[in-house]
């Protein structure tokens, strides 16, 4: 991975079409401005992780659930 040091207000250019500005540096987080073509999706990594989890969750089969329930519920309630 290429690592660059930048100060607040400085910019990085990627491929002529993408511009990344270090907008603000706080104590534990930085604000980053991104200028990119409209058709290029820009999302935080966590959003992609959660999307993947949701897609996996939406595919849960009934059989798998029955197995989960059998383990979650007290045996007496069967």
């Amino acid at each position: 991975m290429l690592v660059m040091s930048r100060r607040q207000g400085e910019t990085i250019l990627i491929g002529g079409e993408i511009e990344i500005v270090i907008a603000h540096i706080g104590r534990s987080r930085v604000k980053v401005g991104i200028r990119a073509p409209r058709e290029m999706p820009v999302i935080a990594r966590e959003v992609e992780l959660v999307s993947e989890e949701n897609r996996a969750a939406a595919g849960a089969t009934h059989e798998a659930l029955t197995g989960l329930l059998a383990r979650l519920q007290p045996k007496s309630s069967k």
Partner: protein
Amino acid sequence: MQTRNFGTIAYEADSALEFPIGLPGFESRRRFVALRFVESDPLVYLQSLEDPALCFVTMPILSVDPQYRLKVGSEDLDRLGLPATRQPRIGEDVFCLAVIAIRETGPTANLLAPVVINLKTRQAVQAIAPDSEYSHRFELMPEEVAVCS
């Protein structure tokens, strides 16, 4: 309403949950109902009202982790119509669900991004916790739960 898993279900119009921006990966799905059945307690099903085949399996987040500390970012608080001045309280201001994924390696709960529902307005978001140490794949340990019975 017809559903894939539950056949035909009836629901009150005012029990529908509104997700103003959908859920990550399902951005166009905005309306859901939460279904709970005695035989599948403590699971809560989030059934899409727009797609009969779309249903998320969830659990109240405090059933997964009784010590769970909810942290909702200011943008999500805004979407929920809640004040940004303090964190919402589970059970008082909001209802909070963890989405469950079932893989071959076992079921996991997404504690990084709980579904947060405003109890008053029924607006909801899947809120990705900022700076969170919670896992998006928290392993549910059913063997351990079973011991409690």
